[in-house]
């Protein structure tokens, strides 16, 4: 914790460029009304990361309020079960509010204060970002409105309740697919009218520049800690690093520390859903094509006219037709491999990790675990596979029970 947490994040490779481009991806495809606010955000962010007081304030919050550094944990029984490589878990589930999302919301809430804004809006899918935003706003006394698809309000009810307890207003979104994508649309529309007084705390590495850069930098603490912990505990880097990818913020934060370590294999796991058919999954890197969604150029599920495609995942946090532009860049560069994992395989991994380790993982994270378990089984025992355990699964318990009942 001697090194400042965000400053190092700024050094992750050479991207994005001044136009917010990760190779060809990223950019800023938004209505003119929002451009001034994005410029202001970028200026404020760049001055904040040079400000030692800002960095010290955030570092202290991450330590005393969030509980960082999060542990690196050897999942011995899970590793034995596969009989292959050793699985180590970066325990972001042990953060305050139960997921990695808080790393970003505290950083952006501090930026909100610096910009002199008093109101915050956010979108949420699984509700983890909504809870983390409500938490940061309660901590700083900011007013908070969270947009959440009606379908997600239903399947992630415990998080809705938690947000309200902390004083946030949750606005169910009833347009379109009533999931994360529509929640982002509504948050953007709110921001169009409120941009002078309101900051939009976007929860993933998606959206217009500078959001993909800022969110990655605030999440880079995950990878930075994990890399140091591996070196300190194991005396070497892991052989592979696995993380789930919806918008891709926990993966971007984790991978950014290992991008320069060419020998470390990086694997992003997308929601493969029910099948490979369009509409049955949310795996935009695996099955989509480059296009524009929510202000950014990146891989997206779309039809031949450029209309955004319907997607599915049993996990609300991965149920999104786009992905962060830096992931598209890493995919095309061949630096990160992206793999789909089915609903069924994720549920199976959720069970296995619950019973063998006593850890209820979020359904989002279960996709990464499923792939890691499979990968570990095919590798020798002396190899090390690091998984970002991005969130805990309490929020999913009721939904899993409902799915089980429906299946019997």
């Amino acid at each position, binding site marked *: 914790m001697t090194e400042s947490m965000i400053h190092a994040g700024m050094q992750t490779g050479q991207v994005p460029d001044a*136009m917010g481009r990760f190779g060809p991806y990223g950019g800023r495809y938004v209505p003119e009304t929002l451009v001034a606010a994005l410029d202001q955000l970028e200026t404020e962010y760049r001055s904040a990361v040079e400000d030692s007081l800002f960095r010290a304030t955030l570092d202290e919050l991450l330590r005393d309020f969030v509980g960082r550094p999060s542990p690196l944990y050897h999942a011995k029984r899970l590793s034995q079960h596969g009989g292959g490589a050793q699985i180590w878990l970066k325990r972001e589930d042990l953060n305050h509010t139960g997921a990695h999302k808080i790393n970003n919301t505290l950083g952006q809430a501090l930026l909100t204060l610096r910009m002199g804004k008093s109101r915050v809006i956010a979108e949420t899918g699984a509700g983890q970002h909504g809870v983390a935003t409500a938490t940061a706003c309660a901590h700083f006394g900011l007013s908070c409105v969270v947009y959440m698809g009606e379908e997600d309000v239903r399947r992630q009810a415990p998080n809705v309740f938690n947000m309200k307890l902390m004083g946030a207003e949750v606005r169910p979104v009833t347009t379109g697919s009533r999931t994360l994508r529509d929640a982002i649309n509504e948050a953007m529309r709110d921001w169009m009218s409120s941009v002078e007084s309101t900051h939009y705390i976007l929860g993933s590495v998606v959206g217009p520049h500078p959001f993909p850069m800022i969110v990655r930098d605030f999440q880079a603490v995950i990878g930075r800690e994990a890399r140091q912990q591996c070196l300190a505990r194991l005396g070497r880097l892991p052989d592979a690093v696995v993380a789930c990818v919806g918008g891709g913020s926990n993966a971007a934060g984790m991978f950014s520390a290992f991008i320069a370590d060419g020998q470390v294999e990086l694997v992003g796991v997308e929601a493969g859903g029910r099948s490979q058919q369009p509409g049955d999954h949310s795996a935009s890197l695996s099955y989509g094509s480059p*296009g524009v*969604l929510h202000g950014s150029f990146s891989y997206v599920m779309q039809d031949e006219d*450029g209309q955004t495609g319907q997607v599915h995942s049993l996990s609300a946090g991965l149920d999104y037709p786009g992905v962060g532009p830096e992931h598209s860049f890493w995919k095309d560069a061949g630096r990160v491999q992206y793999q789909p994992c089915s609903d069924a395989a994720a549920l199976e991994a959720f069970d296995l990790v619950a019973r063998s380790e006593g850890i209820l993982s979020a359904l989002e994270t279960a996709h990464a675990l499923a792939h890691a378990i499979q990968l570990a089984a095919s590798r020798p025992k002396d190899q090390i596979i690091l998984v970002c355990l991005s969130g805990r699964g309490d929020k999913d318990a009721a939904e899993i029970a409902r799915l089980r009942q429906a299946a019997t």
Partner: protein
Amino acid sequence: MPFITAGDPDLDFTADVLKQLDACGCPLCELGIPYSDPIADGPVIQASYTRALERKTHLADIFEMTRRIAPTLAMPIVSMVSYAIVFRRGIASFVAEARAAGIAGAIVPDLPVEEAGPMAQICKQEDFGLIQLVAPTTPRERAIRIARSSTGFLYYVSVAGITGERTRLPADLAENVAWLRSRTSLPICIGFGISQPEHVRQLAPVADGLIVGSAIVRRIARADQEPRDRVLADVTDYVRGLLDALKS
């Protein structure tokens, strides 16, 4: 200048509305290409896009309709289209197809001036208008830069917000447009929120055109349930009322 959504409730009716608007003497019509994720649009236009997409209105069908209708109209048609759709088609293909279909230009609301370079170049070569937008949040120096790269006219967004009818417009609107007028020779058209004859009377002295969308789209939405002749007559009456206010 009316805005209507292509394919709401179907393209045949859109063609009828275009003919009627032309007969009323509208100087130009904006034709909204339905898009699945329109973040600058309020509930009325969003719903019209959803209806059009549910009827499987494809870009090729829209172009086919305008190719038939545009030569019969005195007013030019300008498309309002998301960059997601333009990019997917390929900028050059989109512009060539739109132009061949009798469309005079495009307003691309999610393509700010920094990102507009490649499309602006192609539009210039093809003599196809690329109308850019200035918002109340746009700093003045930036507004001048946008005015320099816009062609056809300049779209001044009246309020910081999404499309939709408003009872009152910002007090400094006329003043801001007058300032912009002193810095550009392009025609300036004002849109977002305008719906009442009173707005038209108030803004006519400072603008070269006033764009009315949601108030018309809301009337057209009834074509799903009501006789189409009646809806067409209602739209005509409403538009004539605004045009009269323009002359008064």
